[in-house]
């Protein structure tokens, strides 16, 4: 009988979840303030901030939970996050005029020490690494 895959929420995975949790909290809070306060100024960046917040929340839940459903959720959220940071990062550099206000993913997460770029790469690596029993 095959052993169950190693939990993503154990050992160094907890550090990853902590960082995801912090980003979930701060991205959602930031988007909340932006949308409540000055939505009409820059709707697209603010909606992107909100989307990033939701993706971070889903990734945190997926990584923290146990079982194949959570693992799928984590794969989806972290994969989307990598695409998001690459797409928004590239667009924000090519077409700076459409991105007057920074989102978490602008300039590949420059405003956040490039952690938004590194995080999904580490996340995908960790999901892959924990996919098979030791």
């Amino acid at each position: 009988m095959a052993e169950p895959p190693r939990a993503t929420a154990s050992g160094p995975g907890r550090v990853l979840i902590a960082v995801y949790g912090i980003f979930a909290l701060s991205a959602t809070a930031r988007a909340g303030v932006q949308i409540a306060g000055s939505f009409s100024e820059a709707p697209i960046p603010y909606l992107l901030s909100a989307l990033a917040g939701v993706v971070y929340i889903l990734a945190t839940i997926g990584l923290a939970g146990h079982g194949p459903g959570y693992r799928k959720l984590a794969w989806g959220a972290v994969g989307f996050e990598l695409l998001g940071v690459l797409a928004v990062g590239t667009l924000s550099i090519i077409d700076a005029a459409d991105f007057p206000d920074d989102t978490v993913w602008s300039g590949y997460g420059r405003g956040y020490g490039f952690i938004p770029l590194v995080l999904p790469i580490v996340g995908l690596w960790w999901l892959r690494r924990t996919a098979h029993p030791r």
Partner: protein
Amino acid sequence: MITPLVVATMVLTGLLALFGLTITILNRPPDRVARIAVWAVVAVLALQAVIAAVQVFAGTALPETSTFLIYLVLSVCVLPIATQFATAEPTRWGGAVIAAGAIATLVAVQRIQSLWIPLG
């Protein structure tokens, strides 16, 4: 905002991050000393938050009051939540979780400081 208190919270959260990383490197789970250290830092952060909140509600006008207040709340809440999570599974990685919380708190304090621009 009181400048010496801002400096103190930044130094303390920085030291707490180093402490967390040290116990991870030494392969020790967060112990009682770590918990006391966290709560001592949180006490100073809470003091700072109360002082700043009183100043804001007493009439100090800021350009971005709601953002300022959210960072103020985050600066106090992140470390207790991180520490709860860090000690739930007693391994060496608990220290790194505390360090992540401490660094996030340091960034929050730095944002609070940069948003503290009293208007006229």
